[in-house]
């Protein structure tokens, strides 16, 4: 099995003492960091061997990270490989806007599937930052997507209200 890089983690006993909501946050952040550290991809087996979490916990959080498009998976034979989605093609093209306690980040990224514009929502709690969701729009179709949003806004009268 390939060696994977992992971030610093708490001992199992320590992380189990964290309150449930913070424990969830902690496990997800560690998995997020681990996938990011391993651009070649990781499997549940690799993660459960190196991290002090149950395979079921790992699977649960990987699926959450997949739903928010922070990671994506490819199937190679019987193996499901999880890869990071959040590496911008160019940092200069990353833009952020804060609206209320939410932050929206947009940037272009490239993964095995092609080039995309990634729009991510981050929620700020008192101490942590949580990813609320994220969508990937193929770069080639982004103009069409913007057109769709603009039309939608006009139809809803949102742009007029805003102005």
């Amino acid at each position, binding site marked *: 099995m390939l060696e994977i890089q992992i971030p*610093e983690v*708490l001992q199992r006993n*320590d992380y189990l*003492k*964290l309150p449930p909501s913070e424990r969830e946050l902690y496990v997800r*952040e560690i998995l997020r960091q681990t996938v990011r550290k391993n651009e070649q991809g990781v499997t549940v087996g690799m993660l459960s061997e190196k991290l002090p979490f149950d395979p079921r916990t790992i699977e649960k959080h990987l699926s959450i990270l997949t739903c928010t498009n922070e990671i994506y998976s490819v199937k190679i034979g019987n193996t499901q490989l999880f890869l990071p989605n959040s590496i911008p093609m160019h940092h200069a093209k990353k833009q952020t806007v804060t609206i209320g306690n939410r932050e929206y980040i947009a940037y272009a990224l490239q993964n095995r599937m092609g080039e995309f514009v990634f729009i991510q929502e981050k929620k*700020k709690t*008192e101490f*942590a930052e949580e990813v609320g969701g994220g969508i990937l729009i193929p770069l080639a179709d982004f103009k069409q997507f913007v057109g769709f949003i603009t039309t939608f806004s006009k139809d809803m009268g949102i742009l007029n209200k805003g102005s």
Partner: protein
Amino acid sequence: MITNEKLLKCGKILKTPSLFINAKTKADGKLIKETIIRYPLNKANNGISQIDGIVISSGDYSAVAPFLVPDIRAQLDPSFYSADKRIRLIDPATHFLFSGLEKDKDACCSVVEKWLPQLSNVVNSVARIDAQKEKLDSSIQRIYPLLDAVLIQRLLEFQIRANADILINPSVPFSSSRRINDQAEKTREMNRQGRVLLDTVLSRYKEQRDLMNLTVLNPSVLASTYVDNILDATLQGNPDIIGIRLMNLDEKNSVETMNFLKFLKTLSSSGKPIVVFNVREFGYVTFCYGANAISMPIAKSPYMTKKKASEKAPHEGSYYHSIEMIDYSYRSFPDNIRAKNYKLPCHCEICDEFGSFTKIEKKQWNYFRKVHFLLVKNMEMQELRKTDVPLNIALKDKFGRSQKTGYVAFLP
């Protein structure tokens, strides 16, 4: 001369060299606030504009905090250097659980009590043990397990809520060479945990606050065989800043003092900024060994001295002589200046206002001498920051003209 300016993640700037002041009581907080207002930086006054930070122990925070709130004057005049514009450090001060005064232990326990109610009982029962060896063993066995990741998280959250500009990782002191491995192991574990927690459950602040690993040590443990272990523990968890707090350095013990300075020099090769906590004029020497900032208590000794029960500290504290660089007690000070008709030997703003010792009423004394201390320290920092010659030369000259000539031998 200012040799370096580091932009902290909070947006404030850590200049090298810098002086921070320890604020311990409500009176200290009030004094700092009033001195800033009374002596603002302008053509006539230097005030205390060269004092760039305020250090408060977690247990003292509630007493001091009301005086550090944002000042309306700073909104009206952007150049007004209010207390909230200076770097704020809230020391979790968990080392007090193991050594120090009872009131400091109680203050630390009172902060932690809501998350860890049993800590106070354990700490007090360990403190009651007379034999030092047994006391240390018991503290390692009984207090260490209570200092877990959850407590570290709560103490980091406490600092965030208190608007600390640099987060200080709680730690245990290095106090005995006999148990150095246990102390290093616990320090390593706590430093790692602090970093992991800031990067995960406190992720909102990982890009907004620097993390400091604070190593509290008795200089006697810095014998060469233990240094690598202590260094490794101090750097664990990749801190942004390193803090060193000395427990009772005997400055007359040249071997111990030199060991400490060598340790500091080695630590500075890590490239991380270093803050040396709780020192007096000796702190200036540490600037020549890689310290970027030092913190000082207001007009008192940084070290704890055990007094006999019958011995009571005098109500009137000591006066810092700005040229001789030593403290004179209220009783001995008049003798020192009698020949000059009791003229105050200093040109800080408050000494100029009073002019003579005879004009200071006894009830004004403590307030006067503390304001004087802050103003003189400000002048000293200004002198060090503006010097045209290398800092070690400037300090050799300054110490050479004072009663602290012993420090010259430690300067490179």
